[in-house]
């Protein structure tokens, strides 16, 4: 799903031995077209399987969760993998996005007389409400990310972790008690926010996933992304080469919060009830585990591990008593045998794979060419 602009790093692979004629390349528009077709095909087939009954209600529900956690992991990866900070309050942004979107949709649909059934049938008004609500949830989370990020990003490492952890707890406690403070029903407090219309489906969740991945990927390939990576590598050098480090650290943090808010908005619609207790410290850790397991700085890694770690506990339900142990063992083994994460820093680009195929550069062909080059040398 990762669209990759050709970064013209000449000589990234040993030329000469294989490249007797000009290397065939895939233009950026062609890459976009191929990826778009694949994403649309994936969405259509998935949607047909859901409506046709090939995917059960329960499986569809798990799949939606997979999509939501993919966005969570990829968004945390911006702050952890790309920016190199360690925020521990990602669940806080998720809850802000979830609550604000859910409250927005509940209130507006009451005001204009849209029922839950309309959401299930998917009327155009509901589609609009969904889009506005999800973006609204993201923006609320981004705003809180800005408020938290400005003081928090003055700190580094452990200190940043603790301060973001503290902020996430504040958010949780606010959600719990704000009704009493403001004096009217807003979040529903400890008993939770109920009556959220089921505004998510396989189709719209994964459409949002595709759009989020595309936006984050494009951002990271741009000069803004390069600035963020430079800060991770060496903050002083980044500053000395002319990167406004304060701005870009805050920017990355806010973008990370925005997408967490979007995921939260989807979560609210998928689960149908919001309770502050769901967004505690453990939720933040769970998402951090996904990022670390997948490989910090690899979008593909985040996607794969979010998928595996969401499905695994469900798939292990048959072994109810042992499933959390199995889950823990998987984590421990991965960290022992693959500490850099499943994918390390590798990122998948379909465009590049096709380019290799167009040039006949297959893994085994490359080895042969290398051997010949060695023999000649």
């Amino acid at each position, binding site marked *: 799903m990762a669209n990759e602009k050709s970064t013209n*790093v000449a000589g990234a692979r040993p030329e000469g031995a294989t490249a007797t004629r000009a290397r065939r390349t895939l233009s950026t528009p062609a890459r976009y077209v191929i990826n778009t077709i694949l994403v649309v095909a994936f969405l259509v087939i998935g949607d047909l399987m859901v409506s046709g009954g090939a995917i059960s209600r329960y499986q569809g529900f798990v799949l939606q969760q997979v999509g939501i956690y993919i966005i969570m992991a990829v968004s945390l990866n911006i702050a952890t993998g790309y920016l190199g900070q360690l925020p521990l309050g990602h669940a806080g942004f998720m809850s802000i996005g979830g609550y604000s979107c859910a409250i927005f949709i509940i209130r507006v649909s009451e005001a204009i007389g849209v029922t839950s059934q309309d959401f299930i049938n998917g009327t155009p008004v509901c589609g609009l409400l969904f889009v506005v609500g999800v973006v609204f949830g993201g923006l609320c989370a981004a705003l809180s990310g800005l408020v938290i990020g400005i003081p928090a990003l003055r700190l580094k490492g452990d200190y940043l972790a603790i301060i973001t952890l503290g902020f996430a707890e504040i958010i949780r406690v606010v959600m719990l008690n704000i009704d009493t403070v403001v004096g009217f029903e807003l979040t529903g407090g400890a008993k939770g926010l109920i009556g959220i219309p089921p505004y998510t489906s396989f189709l719209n969740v994964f459409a949002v996933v595709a759009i989020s991945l595309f936006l984050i990927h494009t951002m990271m390939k741009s000069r803004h992304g390069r600035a963020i*990576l*430079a800060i*991770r590598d060496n903050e*002083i050098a980044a*500053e*000395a*080469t*002319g990167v*406004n480090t304060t701005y870009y650290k805050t920017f990355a943090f806010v973008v990370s919060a925005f997408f967490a808010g979007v995921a939260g908005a989807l979560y609210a619609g998928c689960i149908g009830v919001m309770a502050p207790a769901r967004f505690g410290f453990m939720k933040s850790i769970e998402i951090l585990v996904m990022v670390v397991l997948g490989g910090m700085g690899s979008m593909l890694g985040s996607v794969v591990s979010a998928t595996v770690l969401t499905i695994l506990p469900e798939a292990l339900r048959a072994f109810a008593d042992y499933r959390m142990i199995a889950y823990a063992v998987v984590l421990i083994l991965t960290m022992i045998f693959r500490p850099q994460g499943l994918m390390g820093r590798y990122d998948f680009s379909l465009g590049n794979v096709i380019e290799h195929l167009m040039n006949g550069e297959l893994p085994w062909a490359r080895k042969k060419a290398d051997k010949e080059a060695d023999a000649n040398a």
Partner: protein
Amino acid sequence: MALLSVRDLHVSYGAIKAVRGISFDIERGEIVTLIGANGAGKSTTLNTIAGLIKPDSGSIELSGESIVGVRPHKIVEKGLALCPEGRRVFTRMSVAENLDMGGYTRTDAENAETIKVVYERFPRLRERVGQFAGTMSGGEQQMLAMGRALMSKPDLLMLDEPSMGLAPILVQEIFDIIKELNRQGTTILLVEQNASMALSIADRGYVLEVGRTVKSGSGKELLHDDDVRKAYLGG
């Protein structure tokens, strides 16, 4: 008018005063060096000029314009580049990407031109465009750090300990390159512990001791000054 003029600069880290009233000037086209022992305040001075640290008091003027309190990225845009101590290349980026970052404040078209000049100056970098900077040797990393600083086409290039941790033959190579850069029109402010090398290529030098300028003169004068010889050049 001097290209860079520093007057009565005071800098402290918390309660520790690192720089206590340093003043110096750099004219266009010169190589000026600041020498001194550990803790003399050399690097602090450079970092303060680059905007990485805020001074307590004093003035820093670039072509007559005060740059005190200006953010580092704005100072780069004004034509002043710092090649920081310990090289600090972007280890997880390729050579080409590192150089690209050096031209961060400039347009792609400008960078395409400058990168050719940098590759001409440092042919070794061209050979390694796709290699991760972190996997290169110390000397190559130093060249990359200098190339990266040059990508912003600075009027004034500040080099902080370019010879640090390099083999003698590489030190010679780096200093030859510095001389050549200067000959082609870049003004250079050089901070060094290797005083004899620095003074031998410098037009003028300043000797710093615990945050103060204790001596100044032409490179040659200082090289033959008895006190300097005793303190920094081993008798």
